[in-house]
Structures are given as structure tokens and as C-alpha cells.
């Protein structure tokens, strides 16, 4: 059973979305309105359970009268505003942002990236073979997580999930600045020396696979990861009495990773180290 949390009724406001009069509840973002209207806007740093940092800028839309484009994920709809989601300006910026991202990071495990790159006719390789990119080896310093910064688009979701929005561990932050900025632990040390409690909530929110389960990483390295044959079963965690929902990802009769449904009103996708990683005993290891 999915519990739908009741909220106070909200007033509706009217604005124009791509020429159509649209009514959305007060407080909705432009992205909410687009989704309600069945429009598909690319997003990367937006997440369903975190306040978006609007750092990736792939969801930019044109708001009439504004000097610059607005991020649909965090710009609230206002009564009377006129929004164009697919104007040449917005499409151009999205294309360039996708090119900039794909030229500097590995988007191979980013869901839908390839599709958007095709849709917007982005050509990431036109910056030339010498275009700066990270090209860093994955950081493997513990048995549960792998941090592959070559895939990191610095969307801040892991920082927010580790910090005040979810876990309150504050084990990671952004360090450095500009192109050299990186998600980092204190003093850039290994995760095992940090405040990390291995809840894995950062993996849960990572949109690109820069953070992944060691199990998934190893299988991808070995070429045995096959999402198509995986099944997903949602069950209840048996470790304590909270009753968190676990979604077991099973491939060839083995649990390969554990996630948690984001629409669960108790956990919103959060788990602890036991729920997220304590599945090996099921497999008698």
C-alpha cells in the first residue's frame, strides 16, 4: 500500500506554458507544470526528494521578459508568466550544456544522456582531443562504495543527501573551485577516515553512476552487469522495527544491489548501512 500524504489544499495559479494556459498549485516549479502537462524536459541534478541545486542547467527554459534563461527545476511558476520550454535559445543552451558535460565527464552510465545528446544534436567531441577533462581513476578505498569522479557532474545531490537534507553526516562537500572543484571528504582523505556512516544514500541519489555499489562496479568491470535480466522486488527490511522498504535488485538469483522507493513516506529512499548493504547473509556468504 502506498500512503499518500495529505497536504493543505493549495491555490491554483495560471500562467502560459508554450502558448497553453496552464493551472498549477501555488509553489509548483515550472518543471512540475511541464510534467503535469506531459512535457519531457531533460534534467540531471534535479531529484525527487532533494531541493534541486539547479547547477547542471540542462532544464533551462525561457521566461518572457527575463534577461537570462531560468532553470525549470527550481524556478517557481508565477501567475501571469509566459514560459517557452522549447525555444531556440533554450534548445541551444541545453545542447551546449550537454556538449560541455559530455566533453568533460563520462556519461556512459547516466540514464537518458545518450538519448538527449542525440535529440539536441550535441557533438561533445568538437572541442578537440585536448579538451580538459578529469580522467581520474575510480577511488576504491572500502568494500561498499566506489567513487568514480570521472563520471561526476557535481550536481551536489550527494552532498545534500549526506548533509542537512537527509543523513546529517556531512562527510562530503565540494572542495576547490572552478573546473578543479571536486566532491571531497575532509582533507581529501579516504572515505574510511571521514565521517561517512555508509548509509549509501549518496549512491541512491547520484544521477550519473559516479557513486556506485562496489558490487555493481565490480560486475560492470567484469562485464557481467546486465540490468535487462534483473528483477526488482520491494520488501520490508527485517533488521529493526522501523519498517523501511527495500527494493532488491536480483540478477541470476543473486541480490546485486538494494535501493529504496522514493515515494515511501517513511524513508523517501533513505536507508541505513544494514538495509542498504547487509544482504550478503541472504546469499549464505
Amino acid at each position, binding site marked *: 500500500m502506498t500512503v499518500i500524504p495529505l497536504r493543505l489544499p493549495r491555490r491554483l495559479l495560471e500562467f502560459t506554458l508554450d502558448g497553453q494556459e496552464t493551472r498549477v498549485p501555488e509553489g509548483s516549479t515550472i518543471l512540475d507544470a511541464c510534467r503535469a502537462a506531459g512535457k519531457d524536459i531533460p534534467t540531471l541534478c534535479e531529484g525527487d526528494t532533494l531541493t534541486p*541545486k*539547479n*547547477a*547542471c*542547467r*540542462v532544464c*533551462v527554459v525561457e521566461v518572457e521578459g527575463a534577461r*537570462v*534563461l531560468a*532553470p525549470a527545476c*527550481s524556478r*517557481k511558476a508565477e501567475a501571469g508568466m509566459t514560459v517557452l520550454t522549447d525555444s531556440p*535559445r533554450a534548445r*541551444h*543552451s541545453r*545542447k*551546449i*550544456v550537454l556538449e*560541455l*558535460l559530455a*566533453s*568533460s565527464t563520462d556519461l556512459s552510465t547516466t540514464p537518458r544522456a545518450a538519448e538527449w545528446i542525440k535529440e539536441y544534436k550535441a557533438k561533445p567531441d*568538437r*572541442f*578537440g582531443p*585536448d*579538451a*580538459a577533462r578529469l580522467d581520474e581513476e575510480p577511488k576504491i578505498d572500502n568494500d561498499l562504495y566506489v567513487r568514480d569522479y570521472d563520471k561526476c*557532474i*557535481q550536481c551536489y545531490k550527494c552532498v545534500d543527501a549526506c*548533509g542537512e537534507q537527509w*543523513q*546529517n*553526516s*556531512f*562527510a*562530503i*562537500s*565540494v*572542495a*576547490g*573551485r*572552478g*573546473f*578543479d*572543484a571536486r566532491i*571531497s*571528504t*575532509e*582533507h*581529501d*582523505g579516504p572515505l574510511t*577516515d*571521514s*565521517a561517512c*556512516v555508509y548509509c549509501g544514500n549518496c549512491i541512491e541519489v547520484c544521477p550519473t553512476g559516479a557513486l556506485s555499489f562496489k558490487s555493481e562496479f565490480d560486475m560492470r568491470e567484469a562485464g557481467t552487469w546486465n540490468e535487462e535480466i534483473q528483477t526488482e522486488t520491494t520488501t520490508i527490511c527485517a533488521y529493526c522495527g522501523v519498517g523501511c522498504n527495500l527494493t532488491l535488485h536480483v540478477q541470476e538469483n543473486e541480490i546485486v544491489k538494494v535501493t529504496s522507493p522514493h515515494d515511501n513516506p517513511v524513508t523517501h529512499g533513505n536507508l541505513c548501512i544494514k538495509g542498504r548493504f547487509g544482504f550478503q547473509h541472504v546469499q549464505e556468504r
Partner: protein
Amino acid sequence: MDLHFGDSKPTDEERAAVDSLLGPPTSAWEGAEDRTDADLRWARGGREARERRDLLLPGLHAINDRIGWISEGALDYLCRRLTVPPAEAYGVATFYAMFAVKPRPAKVLHVCTDLACASKGSAALCAGLEERLGAAGSAAGGLVWQPSPCLGLCERAPAALVIQAGVPSDEGSVPLPLASTGSGRDGATQVQLGGARPSWPAGANPAGPARTGNGVSAEPAARRYTTAVIAPATAEALVLAAAEPAAAPAEPAASLAVPQAGQPGLSLLARVGVVDPYSLDDYRAHDGYRALRRAFDLGPAGVIREVTDAGLVGRGGAAFPTGRKWQATASQPVRQHYLVCNADESEPGTFKDRVVMEGDPYALIESMTIAGYAVGADRGYLYLRGEYPRALRLLQNAIDQARARGLLGDDILGQGYAFDIEIRRGAGAYICGEETALFNSIEGYRGEPRSKPPFPVESGLFGKPTAENNVETLINVLPILNQGAAAYAAIGTGQSTGPKLFCVSGNVGKPGIYELPFGATLGELLELAQAPDTMRAILLGGAAGGFVRPDELDIPLTFEGTRAAGTTLGSGVVLVLDDTVPLPRMLVRIAEFFRDESCGQCVPCRVGTVRQEEALHRIVDRTGADAAQDIALLREVGAAMKDASICGLGQTAWSAVESAIDRLGAYK
């Protein structure tokens, strides 16, 4: 909050540096060495400690100033004292150019290689240093030198700044500050920097016993925190100054940066070079504090009306009507309100705020008091760029004197109005001049800009309604109140009223700050500054502005006039390049600057500035068809940076390059 501190311990000196700011720790929870019975019964680190987060940046300065860099132990100790997660503090420490988290020598020599200095031979200067001191960034003989973005000394280019870490010069002669004065937003936490009038170069204070922060006598020859500015610089002078910063020759008076100093008819610069910048009495003898009395007569609403009627618009580049900003802040029902003075000018080619603050510091203090009164703020923050040691000393002195004389504090001039000003030092980040990034910086977070809306007048510093103005905007309030709105509005043009400061630098005979009424033309200004006959290009508005050609001298220097000419007035930079300056290399330098200074938060800016720099490097020696493909690429990336970046830095990072291509035909 689940905080985790490592095992690294601070050294005694690092501990003393932090304690000199925060006072000694009172419990083992925040780093006291002995655990007492009381510590076992209660935990520190709740709201009270977290509310001191804004002392993170001053704390990092305290460590960096004394040691020269920030070690793991020192950072962890500071985090413990302030209940800040070490990962976040590490993120903040690595954000600023003036801090180091890896060991480095106590003496750091910053050599400006930015636009104005580049046009005046900084490349040769760096080559000379390389010969004498070794490669940039390599430490030798207790010294490291490094190229630096604009130091704001453009009129005396090429410029350099030596910073020697050590014991603050006031320590030992002044009682330990802060231990009991409260902190942050509520108390007046001040790093005392020379309450008494120091002799030049201040910071070198050989008198007085050297003592460390916890009162233990140290070696008498403890190294003193010293800064020295050398401009114009030669390699020989830099080597000498770096060896003995305390003995470096004094900086010339600020008035030398004002070629018009002492001339009649000046308004904003009238006192520069005329008054003693240390003396409150001298300031008062020259019309000082007359405007504040008038403000009290008018009442807050009256002051806002005058400023609105005068037509004052912001001088930082955005040209937003100041009266409207103040009105919007004043009318917010939420308390408390803040006033923030943006004195972080880091735009290459800009040095006007520095000259005003050094030549007439009380004017800024008086202006901030009036602005605070108008918007209903009882607290003002003066965010000063970290590279301005002399301005820091003068402003701190001015604040201390004003406070001692009842011109700041609980009851200003007996009017029942309470207002105080705290200086916050930046630490080398151009982006912190962006108004919301500046709030984050003061609050102890990374200086990343926030998304707007909400706007600062609604939710600014500490989430409260905040009016933020830059130095030049604020000091315009004095002539408005002294002359009256009508007389002020009669100066300049209909849409750009009042006087305007221009920073003229580069290849001109008389570089410096010029005050002209709005409406003077570029040619008139350049005539005063003695531009050469061989002008190749003029950069208006700094690195975020645009180039114009030498045949466009009739452009009126107003907001509307420059807009009509397809360029911008920006912050008032007029940087002249003659035909000896290689333009493509200057464009690469501009691109380097933006790549260096991008905060890295949003993709168009973080990656776009890198791609821009790469393309400009590729075509630095090319023209015509060889450059065409990269120019097309630059245009596409530039359009996305302009449209999709979060803040003005990314939005303008391509403007100057674009104008050089379109107006100057840079690669034809």
C-alpha cells in the same frame, strides 16, 4: 548533526591563533585539553555553537595569517570550536586563493599578472623573479612567489603584494579580544587590527613584547604578521621587499592615485588627499557627519525619498535604483535587517573603492550608518577584499574611532539609533563580489552565488532582508543629503545622475581615479588621463565589460549612452591598450581569469570558461580562416554561458572576448 573529527591535533601556535579570535575553549566538547566533571554531564554544540558558523572565515584567516597555511589539525580544531563539519570547512578553505591547505613558506609574494599589470610589463617582472627566486610556486628560502589576479593597484602597475605570516602586531599590546564580547551577529566580534595609529608600514610593530595568544611569553623575535605593497614593482625591489617585508618602503599616499586631488568641484573625491584619513576630527572639519545629522532630521523614510528623488543607481555595474532597493528592504516586516557594503572590488582594472577607502575612510562609515538607518538595519557588514591591507587598517581605525565617539554603537548621536559595523575580510575570490555569494562567504559557506529569486531585499544575509551596496554607491549618499536631491539630480544626465568615478589604467600618461559628472565622453576622460596617440583598444567595465575602438571616443559615459553604443559602463573601468600590447594574449588572460575565478557550481560556467580559454589558446597566433572555426565555437559556448549561467560571472565571461572579435576585429 553527526560530527566526526580526525585525530590530528593543532600545534600550540595554531591553537593560539584560533583562540585569539574565539577566546579559550570552555569545555572539552570544543577542544579544551582537560575534560572536567561538567563535560560528562552536558554536551556543547547545539544551536549556540552553530550560530557562530560565520566566524569560520575569520578563523581561517587567523590560522593562515599566523602560520601561513592551514593544517589538518588547525582546521579540525577550528571546526570543533565552531561545530562545523570538517568536510564543509575544507570545502571553504580550498575555495579561496589566499589560503593554502598544503604546507608553504610563511612569506608569499603575489605578483599581479592581470590586464593593467600585463600592459605595463608584468611578464618581464615575472621573468626577472624567476631568475632570482626560481620558478613560480616553488618554495625556497622561506618564500614562495606566485602570479596573482588583479590586486587592485592598477594605477601603479605592475604591482605585487608580500604577505608574511606571523603573530598579529596588536597582540601583546592589546588585551585579548573577543573572549567576552560575544560573537557573530549579536556581539561585536572584531579582530583588532591596530586600534592605535600605526606608523607606516603598519603591521611592522617592533615595539611591545611578543606574546602568543594564551599569554605565554614566546621568543622575543617572534615573526610578525606583515604585509607590504610594492607598486610599481621591479624584480630587484620585490626580492628586497620579500626578504624583509617590514622594511619595505611605504606605499605612496592614496591621493597620488587621484590626479584631480585637491581640485575644486570634486564631490566624491573632495576629501581624498585633503583630510588625514586617520583623524575623525579632520573628517568632521571637512563636512564630515553633516549628512548623518541631516538623515536624522529627515527620518528613515525621508532619507529613502531623497535617495530616490536624486536618481541614484548602483555603481557596481548593475545600475539598480538604490532608493528602490532601500525601500524594498525597509518595508520587509521580518526583523532583523542588515546592511552590507560590498567592498570586494576584484574586477580587473578596478581600484576606485580602494582609493576612496584609503583616502577618506570615514566617508564610507558615515554612508553606511545612513544607509543602515534608512533600511532599518542595526548591523552593517563591510566585506573587504582580502588583498587590501591598508584599507583594512584605515577602516578598522575609522570604525574604532567612530565607536569611541558615539558615532557607532547603541545610541548614535543621542538619537536612539543603534548601529555597528563589522569588517569581514575576503580571502581572494572574485565571485564573492556577487551579492549572494558574498552572503554565503560571510556566513561561513563556500562563496557560491545563490539562485534568485528570492532577492536579497527579502532574504539576504542570514536569510534576513538585506540591502547590499558597493562603496561608490554608498558614498554618493553624502552629497545627496548635503546638497539635497534636486541639486544632486541636476548633475549628469536625466537617467544617469550625479558624479561618477572612473578607474583609468593601462597605457596612459596619468592613470588613476577620475571623478566626472555623468555625461562626459570617453574622449574627455582620456584627455585628462593623457591617452597615447597609439591607442589600439579601450576596455570599458573591466574583464566583464567590453572593448571599444579608439575612434569611438564620443561615447557618452552614462549607463544609457554606453548601452546605446552596444557596450557597458560596468564598474567604471577604462583600461587603455596601445599598439604594443598583443591583443590575443590579453584575451587569453581574460579567459584565464574567468576560468580561475569561476566558483564551479554551474556547468556553463565551470566547463564553458575552460573551453573558452582552450579555444583562445588555439587561435592566439591565428587570423582569418584559421581562426574561424574556433570563433564560431566561442560564439556558441558564449551564448550558452550568457544565457544559462547562474550568476553574472558566467553570464559576462565572454563579453570582452566577443567585443574584441566584433568591434576590434581581433582575429581578422
